[in-house]
């Protein structure tokens, strides 16, 4: 379990998601059942490497594009948009 049981509420594609503090944004997106990215030929994609190398988990966080969601922790009120 993430270090703390404190919970954090963020929005993924406009829908509120409650996660334990210490949860990565990538894990939060997967919990919603959504894929994270659409590839250049239109395929749904999810995380591959889990360590900030492959860029398959990139999404927009609080208005900033191309954030590697596997290396960013969820914070209260965060707004995440997948493509």
């Amino acid at each position, binding site marked *: 379990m*993430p270090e703390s049981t404190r919970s954090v509420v963020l929005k993924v594609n406009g829908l509120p998601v409650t996660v334990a503090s210490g949860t*990565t944004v990538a894990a939060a997106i997967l*919990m919603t059942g959504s*894929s994270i990215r659409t*590839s250049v030929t239109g395929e749904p994609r*999810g995380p591959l490497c889990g360590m900030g190398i492959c860029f398959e988990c990139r999404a927009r966080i609080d208005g900033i594009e191309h954030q590697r969601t596997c290396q960013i922790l969820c914070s209260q009120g965060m707004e995440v948009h997948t493509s």
Partner: protein
Amino acid sequence: MSEHFDILVVGAGPAGIAAAVSASDSGKRVGLVDDNPAPGGQIWRSGASPGAEADQWLTKLNASSAIRLQGWRVIDHPERGRLRAERSQECREFSYGQLILATGARERFLPFPGWTLPNVMGAGALDAMVRGGLPIAGKRVVVAGTGPLLLAVAAHLSRRGAKVVAICEQARPGRFVPFAAHLLSEPRKLLQGVSYLTATRGTQFYTGCWPIAATGGEKLESVTLERSGTKWDVRCDYLACGFHLVPNLELAGLIGCRIDDGFVSTDELQRTSVEDVFCAGEPTGIGGVDVALLEGRIAGFAASGRITEAVKLAQRLKRRVGFVRALRDLTALDPKLKKLAAGETIVCRCEDVSYGAMRKHAGWRAAKLQTRCGMGPCQGRICGTAAEFLFDWRSDHDDSHVRPPVFPAMVSSLRTTHINTEHDDSLIVPGTSTSISKETP
């Protein structure tokens, strides 16, 4: 406006932590740069108790005078003695007297039909997701690929309540004999192995076995496995598949460190071919956490002038050479794995370039120019590594062709006289004339 460190360490996994702790004992100003939210690297990832040894080192790190530069990703080495790094929308420079590279390794991925489906990911990657909060209890997981990581991941996921339905190791049983023989001389590793086997009791462990296809609609639903010509389908929620590890050499390559046979070349005190640049851990050879800790300590002592201590530890390192070799032999890939990808199987996931499109070309450079493979944001870290095995091509990662930035960076970060406040959210990928704007083309 760069911040100066006598000794700067890049990467806060076991090697980097050991290097920073050992170097800071000398009273030098030590910095530890790492791109993750917390130190520990991949193996001592936070989100679960990583064990007593990790706790010990993390406690030592906290007690040390080393300055933690967490969340900073190094993107460039604009000149000798200076690194440039980004964090979120910020860019900074760190100057150094001596540099210790502890950039770790990543999993090797091999393409097969369906490997691009969501919920097919690396073995370490699924483990990282779970440590990062992904619920896994009750989920059906197939763990596949090669190397000791598979069993470690399967054990951890089982303890978290996952139903690990199969562990598929590509190596044939004969390859385990020398590896197991080596483990007998390392009781701690042996005990660890036994604990993994206990945790995965009841799970089918296949050798000489691998996934040949993953199927599903919007995400993974089923995996087809093959062993000695027999094929069968397994329904699952996740496929955790990684073919051992490859070192992260980009920064070492950019700095100009000599790379031999796919690894950074060092002397017995972890000195690279570039003056004042040391390297420790997986980039010098995949040897696991014990070797990484030793090399990190040696580099930390050597960089801070405590040569006697460094030399003493270097003697101990020699005894580990056998394990590194046994691991390499165990994880040598079966040539049949070259045939997993079909013509239409995507190899380059950034640019969606197929195996068939890449195969037509004579080498990596030609394929890049003609198909754009390796020119997306991962900069060929995934497909270049696969292409080295699939086509016997040399990609850019093990030679002097590394160009800055070593990760996609903000345009503002690339200016020679950079400003750290300006916002520009387009990413520049080196080796291309295009930038990735809001939407990937």
